[in-house]
C-alpha cells in the first residue's frame, strides 16, 4: 500500500506569497523588539555576570579542606578519599602528630594534601566518604591556572578555599 502524502491546499493569499511573507516579517520583528527591549531572556554575559548567587544548593564545585571550631585541621590523613577518588586526583602524605602537640591524641595529620584540579571530576565521593567531615565541595567553579603545577591545589590552598566549618554536618541539619 503506497502511502499518499496529502499536500496542504493553499488558499489564494498563501499562493501569492506576499501576505505570508508579511506575516513572517512581523514574527521576526516581534522577536527583534522583544530581545532589544530585554523581554526575551538571553545568554548570561559570563565574565561580567556570574553564576555565584544563582548556584543551586546541591552544586558541586571545587573540593576543599576545613578546620573545626578550635582551628584544628579536621583531616586525620586516613586516606579514604585518596582511595575512593575515581580519577585519582588526591594525593596524601600522612604524618604522625608529635606527642608534645596539643592535639597529640588525634595521632595523624596530613603532611601534604594535594588535589590535582585537572584530574578532579567534581563527583563528591571524597566528601561522602570522609569520616571526619574534613573535605567539602565548595561552589568555586572557575578553577584556572597557567601551568599544570598551578592547577594542583596544595594543603594551604585547600584550607584557604575551605575555611572554618563549625558544627557537625548531619543528614538532619542543613549545615552543608
Amino acid at each position: 500500500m503506497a502511502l499518499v502524502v496529502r499536500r496542504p491546499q493553499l488558499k489564494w493569499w498563501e499562493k501569492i506569497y506576499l501576505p505570508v511573507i508579511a506575516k513572517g516579517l512581523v514574527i521576526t520583528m516581534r522577536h527583534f523588539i522583544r530581545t532589544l527591549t530585554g523581554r526575551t531572556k538571553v545568554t548570561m554575559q559570563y565574565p561580567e555576570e556570574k553564576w555565584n548567587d544563582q548556584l543551586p544548593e546541591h552544586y558541586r564545585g571545587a573540593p576543599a579542606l576545613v578546620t573545626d571550631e578550635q582551628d584544628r585541621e579536621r583531616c586525620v590523613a586516613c586516606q579514604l578519599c585518596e582511595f575512593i577518588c575515581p580519577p585519582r586526583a588526591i594525593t596524601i602524605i600522612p604524618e604522625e602528630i608529635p606527642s608534645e602537640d596539643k592535639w597529640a591524641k588525634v595521632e595523624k595529620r596530613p603532611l601534604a594534601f594535594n588535589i590535582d584540579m585537572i584530574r578532579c571530576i567534581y563527583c563528591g565521593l571524597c566528601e561522602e566518604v570522609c569520616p571526619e567531615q574534613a573535605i567539602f565541595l565548595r561552589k568555586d567553579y572557575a578553577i584556572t591556572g597557567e601551568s599544570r603545577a598551578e592547577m594542583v591545589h596544595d594543603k594551604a590552598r585547600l584550607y584557604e578555599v575551605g575555611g572554618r566549618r563549625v558544627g557537625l554536618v548531619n543528614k538532619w541539619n542543613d549545615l552543608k
Partner: protein
Amino acid sequence: MDFIALAISAVKIVGLVFLVIMPMVAYAVWAERRVSALIQDRVGPNRVGFQGLLQPVADGLKFILKEDFTPKNVRTGYYWLAPALTMVPALLTCAVLPFGSQLFGEPMVIANLNAGPLFIFAIASLSVYGIVLAGWASNSKYPFLGGVRSTSQMISYEISLGLSIIPVLMILGDLNLGRMVQDQSVNGWLMLPLWGDRFSLKGLLLLVPVVISFVVFTVSMFAETNRLPFDLPECETELVAGYHTEYSSMKFALFFLGEYAAMIIGSGLAVTLFFGGWSLPFGWLSWDGKADIPWWQGLIHMATFFGKVVVFILFFIWVRWSLPRFRFDQLMRLGWVFFFEIAVINIILTAGIMMLVK
C-alpha cells in the same frame, strides 16, 4: 581649471568610497550580525569595543593576517581576477548616485551622467562575471554549481530589474538621477505623493504602478545581490559556500565586501528612484537645482540620503533573517513567469494612466 575640477572629483571619489561606502560595508556586516542575533533571541558580537562596534576592525585584521591560499588545481589568472571583478563594479556604480544636493556650490555626485540608471545597470551586470569566473576557475564542483546558478539567476533578474524602473522613468521623464531627485524633492516622492504637483488625482493613481514597480524592483534587487531568499549561488546548506568555496583570506573578503557594497548601492538606487534620494519629506528644504543653497542644508541633505540608505539596509537584513531560501525552479518561475509579465503590464498601466488622467 581642469586641474581643480579633477581634484574636486578625486576628493569626492575618495570621500564617498573610502570614508562612507567602505565603513558602511563594514558596519553593515556588524549590523547584520547584531540584528540577526536579536531576531534569533541571541546577543551577537558585543565584545570588541562598546557593543562590539570595533568588530569590523578585528574581522578585517583577521582577514589580512590569514594565509592567502591558492589551491593547486585552479586557473590562477582567472582565480585571482574574480574577486576584483566582483568588488570593482559594485564600487563603480556609486559614481552616478546623487548622495547629496549641493555643498559649497558643488553638486554632490561624482559623475553627473545623463543616463544614470542605464550606467548602473550596465556596470552592475558586469559583476556576474566575477562570480562566474570564480566558479569556473576554482576547478571544483561546488563553486562550479554556484557559478552556473548565479549566471542564470543574475541574467534572468536583470530583465525584470530593468523593466521595473521604466514606469519611474516615464513618470519623471528624465534619465539624470540628480534631476530625478530634484523633481521629487519639489513635487513629492514617487512612493509618498503628498505634496507639490503629485498631490493630485493623477499622482495618487500613479501610486499603484509605482508600488508594483517598487516591489518588483526590490525583489529583483535581492536576487541581483544574491541576498538570502535568493542566495542560491552561495547556498551554504547545499553548496558548502558556493562560488567562493575555494577562496580564503582577503580574496574571500573581497567577495564578501563586494556583496555588501552591491547591497548598499542597490539601496541607494532604490532610495533615489522611489523615496526622493536626499530630499526631506513634505518639501522641507527642497531644492530645484537652480539657486545655490547654504552648506548646512547640503549637509542635512547628505545625512537624509545616508539615513534612508541605512533604513533600507536594515530592511534587507530583516528580510534575510525572515525568509527561507527559494528552490531554483521557483526562482526561475518567479523571475520569468511573474515578474517579467508584471513589469511589462505595469508599463502599459502607467502609460494608460498618464494618457487618460490629466
